[in-house]
């Protein structure tokens, strides 16, 4: 019983250690692979100050629709990147519909296909995760649910 309790504790602590949260370094994101909708590998710049992350189709659409209405360098000018975790999307849907659509956007999208990412990034249902960083360290994690809040988060 004691061994089981110890095992469970160790697993829990390990999971917590891998979670990316306030005070985590941006370097922790290097462990995961990203690529553009065109398939080009991307690396998260360590100078990034804002990271937007969407895990669902609808929240992804909020971000994409908002960014598509901005200047194509809006993200870069605001030292922001957008990561769309699409690992849950069926691959047929991804290839036939999602990727062709995303390739038409003028803004940059970092696509994340791995299963692990969702387990380490704080997120809430129907919300977009927003991380604010300073000097490569996550200072704040918040959640937004519409374009107005998204804009305020980026341009604050």
């Amino acid at each position, binding site marked *: 019983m004691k061994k089981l309790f110890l095992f469970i504790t160790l697993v829990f602590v390990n999971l917590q250690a891998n979670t990316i949260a306030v005070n985590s370094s941006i370097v922790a994101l*290097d462990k995961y692979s990203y*690529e*553009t909708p*065109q*398939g*080009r*590998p*991307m*690396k998260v*710049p*360590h*100078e990034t100050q804002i990271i937007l992350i969407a895990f669902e189709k609808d929240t992804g659409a909020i971000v994409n629709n908002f960014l598509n209405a901005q200047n*194509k*360098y809006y*993200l*870069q000018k605001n030292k922001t*990147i957008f990561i769309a975790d699409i690992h849950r999307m069926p691959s*047929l849907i991804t*290839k*036939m519909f999602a*990727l*062709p659509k995303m*390739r038409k956007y*003028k*803004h*940059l999208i970092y696509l994340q296909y791995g299963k692990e990412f969702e387990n380490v990034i704080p997120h809430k249902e129907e919300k977009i995760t927003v991380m604010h960083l300073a000097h490569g360290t996550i200072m704040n994690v918040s959640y937004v649910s519409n374009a107005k809040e998204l804009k305020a988060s980026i341009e604050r």
Partner: protein
Amino acid sequence: MKRQIILTALIVSLTIFISACSKEAPAINTGFFKDYSTTKQNIKPNLATYKKVKIVPVAVIPAITLEKQTVSQKKMYKDIENYLTKEYTNIVTASGYTVTNKADKDTFILESAISMVEVHPHDKEWNQLTPIAIGLDVVSFNAYMYQNVRLLGEMRLVDAISGHVIGRNLSILKDNKILLDGDNLEFKNLKLSLDNWLKIVKANIQNQ
């Protein structure tokens, strides 16, 4: 039977459609070499038996599709091609070779390509030969802004008769950060890298 034919046709159509959907590929390396997983593939040539050189115009690989290139980018690529081709001629002549358009038995062909790569020297997982646009676009903007772009020079010396590769060089100009002036990439931002590439070309051709 009819149902099977319809089902087969549907699957084939879907497969073709899916393949077509994934046709738009990211920037690729120039194709001079078969392998872009390593920079360690240079061969110093032995040019003792050669007297003439045929210079092929430099291939500038912008990694921006023609329809998306701006007028100033097109001009910049042409400037790079002209500058390097002219300087190759100077190097070849100064080294005692005659520039020729013919493929004779004492002739080698100088082929080269220029492109850009995104580098992250401290990241061992990152392919340091990952191609990137010669110019700003949404993919390359941050890489240029954070000075993670370097010029990649590639050169191949080929025996004009046999077609054998007698020398080759693939070099990332690691020490030359590409620095932007504002939001534009111009020839002047690349000149230092180009001149250092010329030194490598010269070192390969001279003193044979």
